[in-house]
């Protein structure tokens, strides 16, 4: 492995969170973005082809070592690590709406779900899955929410583009309304 790949490996090992390419570039000012990307691919291939219990995954706009799926059961059973709490249907509904309509206000979420979603949004916000990104234009300048990198992380997504496209879903529906004053 190249020296840069080994440096990147060390940095990723030291971090408990996904690390972005931009962050990795700061490890070695001499190396550019392209070199770091190459090192990441080299590293990923090394762990993919070699005999390892972990693999390098691109996730949440960054990179992270994760244990291989086949060991989940054993690790879980022995309680070396805890699985994250599962999200309730209400939480997933709210997340789905926020993910696709962001930035979106609570009223719109309420309207689509047909129920008051204030408490659910509050909880998602506490878990760091959504955050206030801006304020809307309308009456009272409502808070508008969007998803966080943590959201991508718990779903194992690289970025929001990995979410299924609405037209791929079986239910045909109008596209999200273009931003118009209501």
């Amino acid at each position, binding site marked *: 492995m190249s020296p840069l790949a080994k440096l990147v490996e060390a940095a990723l*090992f030291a*971090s*408990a*969170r*996904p690390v972005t390419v931009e962050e990795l570039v700061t490890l070695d000012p001499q190396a550019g973005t392209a070199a770091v990307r190459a090192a990441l691919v080299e590293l990923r291939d090394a762990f993919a082809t070699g005999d390892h219990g972990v693999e390098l*995954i691109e996730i949440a706009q960054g990179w*992270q*070592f*994760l*244990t*291989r*799926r086949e060991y*989940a059961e054993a*690790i879980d059973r022995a309680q*070396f*690590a*805890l*699985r*994250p*709490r*599962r*999200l*309730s*249907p*209400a939480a*997933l*509904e709210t*997340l*789905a*709406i926020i*993910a*696709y309509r962001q930035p979106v206000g609570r009223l719109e979420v309420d309207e*689509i*779900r*047909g*129920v*008051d979603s204030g408490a659910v949004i509050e909880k998602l916000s506490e*878990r760091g899955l959504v955050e206030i990104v801006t304020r809307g234009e309308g009456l009272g300048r409502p808070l508008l929410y969007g998803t966080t990198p943590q959201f991508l*992380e*718990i*779903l*194992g*997504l690289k970025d929001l583009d990995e*979410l*299924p496209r*609405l037209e791929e*879903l*079986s*239910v*045909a*529906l*109008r596209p999200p309304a273009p931003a118009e004053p209501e």
Partner: protein
Amino acid sequence: MTALPPTAQDQAGFVVELEQFSGPLDLLLHLIQEDEVDITDLPIAKIADQFLAVINELRLNQAADYLEMAARLLRIKAQMLLPRRLGDDEWEDPRAELVRRLLEYQQIRELVEWLGAAAARRAEQFGRGFSPEPPTAPPAPLVIDLNDLLAAAERVIALIPEPVLHRVVPRPLDVEGATARIEALLAERAALGWGDVVGERPTIVDVLSAFIALLELAKRGALRVHQEGPFAPIQIRRESPRETR
């Protein structure tokens, strides 16, 4: 889509678990799927009746969100019954908005499936030093001795303000009684002083009752109240019936 297996059969024919519905749209969608009807051509009367039956059954009829949907369904049902002229192109299907919302919600449910599956798949892999959320630890047991406890108790007690207690005694004003007494006095004497009206050692209630009675009688023209100046003694004089107009 989470299939909601009926747990038991009741007279209405459907038993569903309340906890499983995340809202009125969810319940509605469940009914539609159970009936296997076309969502774009909703048999609104049937669905509305079922919806009402379920929310009654589940005592959801207290929940505003469900009530609002019930009201909406009934309104659409009524609108569907309105006669419309033949060849009326202007006619707008009253179900359109509801169908749009249902389709939209159905799509969200599909996304929920997808997101749930993605999260479950991600949960099969662990990161370094992964800790999901700090578990809500029980508060650490206090390590104190008796002196600490007493000192703490004293500090708390010191903060309590001296309680101000009021005794509330029901003593309604007796305007009628005062009126009767004044009238009796005036029957004997043409003129009275304030002291005659309130009697000896009047209580605040006596004073108030007498005063209101005086004003009332003066308004009725039964007597005339006169005072030389501010704080001067109040003089009360009988008004003869002839003089009242």
